[in-house]
């Protein structure tokens, strides 16, 4: 029978420093969960991008808004939630920066990197109406 997932929840202020802090936490949790160095980097960068998105576009750099960062350590994967207090967004509305018409534009690279480095990425609407980015990395066992 699978054991219950371990859960770590951190509430971050909407500060630029929170991005690197979240990334560092992501790397440490990934290491503790048994991921190798390459995956630790990929998970850390994905957390960095998720929290940066919450900081800039979700919470619009308003310090009084919070960013919830949740790590769930399952037997088969690490699941990460990044929840902001903004207006939310749909993954389908994010332009693909690889397309010729977008390649020199500014949007979409963060989401693309999360999708490239994690096994699962989806965006939900949080209970408060903000965006909840949920991403998972499976163990290669």
């Amino acid at each position, binding site marked *: 029978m699978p054991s219950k997932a371990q859960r770590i929840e951190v509430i971050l202020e909407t500060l630029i420093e929170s*991005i*690197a802090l979240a990334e560092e936490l992501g790397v440490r949790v990934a290491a503790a969960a048994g991921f190798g160095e390459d995956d630790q980097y990929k998970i850390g960068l994905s957390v*960095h991008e998720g929290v940066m998105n919450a900081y800039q576009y979700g919470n619009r750099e308003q310090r009084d808004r919070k960013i919830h960062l949740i790590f769930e350590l399952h037997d088969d994967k690490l699941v990460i939630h990044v929840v902001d207090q903004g207006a939310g967004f749909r993954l389908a509305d994010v332009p693909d920066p690889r397309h010729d018409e977008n390649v020199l534009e500014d949007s979409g690279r963060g989401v693309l990197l999360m999708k490239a480095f994690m096994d699962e990425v989806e965006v939900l609407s949080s209970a408060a109406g903000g965006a909840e980015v949920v991403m998972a990395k499976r163990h290669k066992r």
Partner: protein
Amino acid sequence: MSFKATSRVVGDVTVIDMDGRITLGEGSALLRDLVLQNLSQGHKKIVLNLAGINYIDSSGLGELVSGYRLMKSEDGELKLLNLNKKVTDLLQITQLYTVFDIHSQEAQAIASFHS
């Protein structure tokens, strides 16, 4: 390690040697200022030497693209030198590898402005 950059001139080419991280709040704004500063001084041939860059995020990639766009709009050129594997991977994932002129030898990068 936070972002550091120093400029040097080789012939009529400005080489900007960079170290550390290019991320929102660390290197991105400084990189933008450096490109703008060079442009305002009439330096339109720029090589960004990324040998010391060990980390870059989507904001940093966006700043490289902004620099490229800006130089192009002013009839200048911005090229990249000495990308490590992580940075190369990011440029490949985002298709930016096809946008930039990328070199692994400084002499070759400098000579490419005149070819």
